[in-house]
């Protein structure tokens, strides 16, 4: 079968610092990250002919393109559903280079999400009669107005069905902060937490404590995708895109998939996982590390189950045994995740996946042949498997 597997590679990564107030425009952040990623790859910005980002990004492709001295933009695409995009721009870029539509595609996400607007302050959209705003009418009139609250409803049921506890969620946060503590780029560099501190942190939306919620950040990340042929002459060893997929289904809703039979499931990720393993021709035994989207800790558990590292409902045991930490079966979020490094809508996780493949993570896992990277959970999502050449 002819698949997207190993047709394209990530050859450059770039990022700004991660902060609570960047002090400059989102567009400038996007340009800085893009130029750094191109320099990392050793590619002249004038060679860029494709761009892909999120629909939630505020930086028009053409503004970025003129700022980097682009000449001819032949491909641009945007992915919907917030952080569920994360891996999908890389998939779209791989498709574009594999089909000859473009040769050099930059994927970017830049935001002043902390200093200029905050997703966590509550979302009460104006009553404009579109399907997208009508969706929120089932929740916001009842005060269910934040991403944390939408996730918490499914998390509560997951706990009820499987016996997972707040401490199990806390262990995800503790691991992330431990990894961030050794990452100088992380906002929470040298600031590990204990499970007791997690348990003592204030409620945001029961059953979520403050320390179950990721940060809000200013910053930008960009990655460069080109063909496997083109990657050979570049500066960095390529991170091969061994598999790339998007997924939605089982009555997916935007963060409120409350109507499927089992609401503890994030079926979108099951659909992604099946495709990734099929494209790569591998299974969970072949994966040494993972970047699992961690806007809120509870959804890390069903991701471990979707990818077959634990049976349904048993991720709590996998975590309690220390498997998601360095030295464990599957170290996750070695950069500190969005809980510890920064919340850049998951694109910083893609960059960490590339570092794990290159062998340059500050928390490097030995003998990496396959890294799973996932995008936002509770929404239509996406995922990647990255591998050395």
């Amino acid at each position: 079968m002819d698949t997207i597997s190993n047709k394209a590679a990530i050859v450059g990564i770039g990022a700004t610092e991660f902060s609570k107030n960047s002090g400059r425009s989102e567009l400038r952040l996007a340009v800085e990250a893009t130029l750094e990623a191109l320099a990392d790859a050793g590619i002249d910005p004038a060679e860029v002919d494709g761009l892909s980002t999120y629909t939630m990004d505020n930086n028009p492709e053409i503004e970025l393109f003129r700022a980097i001295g682009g000449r001819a933009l032949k491909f641009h695409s945007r992915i919907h559903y917030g952080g569920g995009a994360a891996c999908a721009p890389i998939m779209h870029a791989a498709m574009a280079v594999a089909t000859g539509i473009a040769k050099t595609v930059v994927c970017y996400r830049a935001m002043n999400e902390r200093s200029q607007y905050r997703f966590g302050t509550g979302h009460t959209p104006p009553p404009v009669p579109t399907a997208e705003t009508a969706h929120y009418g089932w929740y916001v009139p009842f005060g269910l107005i934040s991403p944390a609250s939408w996730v918490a409803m499914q998390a509560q049921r997951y706990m009820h069905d499987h016996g997972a506890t707040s401490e199990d969620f806390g262990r995800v946060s503790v691991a992330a902060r431990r990894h961030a503590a050794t990452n100088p780029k992380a906002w929470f560099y040298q600031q590990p937490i204990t499970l007791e501190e997690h348990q003592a942190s204030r409620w945001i939306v029961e059953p979520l404590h403050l320390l179950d919620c990721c940060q809000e950040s200013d910053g930008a990340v960009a990655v460069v995708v080109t063909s496997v042929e083109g990657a050979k002459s570049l500066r960095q060893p390529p991170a091969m895109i061994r598999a790339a997929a998007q997924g939605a289904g089982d009555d997916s809703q935007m963060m409120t998939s409350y109507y499927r039979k089992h609401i503890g499931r994030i079926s979108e990720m099951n659909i992604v996982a099946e495709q990734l393993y099929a494209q790569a021709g591998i299974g969970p035994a072949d994966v040494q590390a993972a970047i699992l989207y961690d806007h809120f800790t509870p959804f890390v558990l069903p991701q471990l189950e979707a990818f077959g590292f634990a049976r349904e409902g048993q991720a709590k045991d996998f975590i309690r045994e220390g498997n998601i930490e360095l030295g464990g079966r599957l170290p996750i979020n070695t950069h500190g995740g969005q809980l510890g490094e920064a919340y850049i809508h998951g694109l910083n996780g893609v960059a960490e996946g590339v570092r794990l493949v290159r062998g340059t993570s500050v928390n490097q896992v030995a003998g990496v042949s396959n890294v799973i990277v996932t995008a936002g959970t509770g929404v239509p999502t996406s995922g990647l498997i990255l591998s050395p050449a």
Partner: protein
Amino acid sequence: MTEQDLLTRARAFVGGEATPPVTARDAVNQPMIRRWAEAMGDANPLWHDPQVRAAGGFAGAIAPPAMLDVWTMARYRPGGRTADEGMPVLQLFDAAGYTGVVATNIEQEYLRYLEEGDIVSMRATVADVSDEKRTGLGIGHFVTIDYEFTDQRGDAVGRMKFRVLKFKPPLTQAAPAADGEKPNKFPHPRPAITHDNAFFWEGLKQRKLLIQSFGGRLVHPPVPACPETGSFDWTTVEASGRGTIHSFVIMHQPQLPCFDYPLPVVLVELEEGVRIVANMLGATADEVAIGKPVTLDFVEVEPDYILPAFRLA
């Protein structure tokens, strides 16, 4: 009722009486002619000056021809016509949601001047119901009524073709109540009303929790077409109000001024099999638990803005 059913039923009226026949309550008379001409700004002396009239060969008062349908008009009634004064063909469209109406064409044909003392009778016939038309006002059907006017001898004096558009009015979005008494009150968040969900929010105004039903297959949140069959035909069923808590959260942050915190928000599985998010009434956060039975109530959060809410059973 499908669009085709509606058209079939509406076209069954074509050729038949639009309303029962009407005979004028007053004979054609000078005072009404004078008032009508003044109101219309018609200064033609023919309508009130006996000399001018005589020069034209008329012995008594004559009416402006455009008054043809005035004599048999329904009585003035503040608040509009009563149901029995309406036209069944138009009422059929009202019931199907085509509640908007606008007159689009009038053609009148005059056979002779109406003279003082004439007693006019009118018969109305449904002449045509158009296919569905997409107009700037909305989706609708043109309905054409033919009127025939006769005098006290039964002789024809004029005809009129009157065409209206019956249309689905644009959706109106619920605006936050203009609350003059509490100008600082934070408005309760409002839903966006679409063609697909309007029934739900309308139902709440009647204190009914309505669920979309495709031939007995219930769906919530509503969708335009049945996910199983692709059918666009659906009705609603009223929820019994019995259910159990399937999941819940307790909101602490962020807070809106229109709620009390800690705020329980529940996902209730109704006994009909669908789930719905709502708040609790009369229950504290620590009384809420998965599996507890609840019953439906309603709460008017702002004037005329009613939401479902649940009580522990």
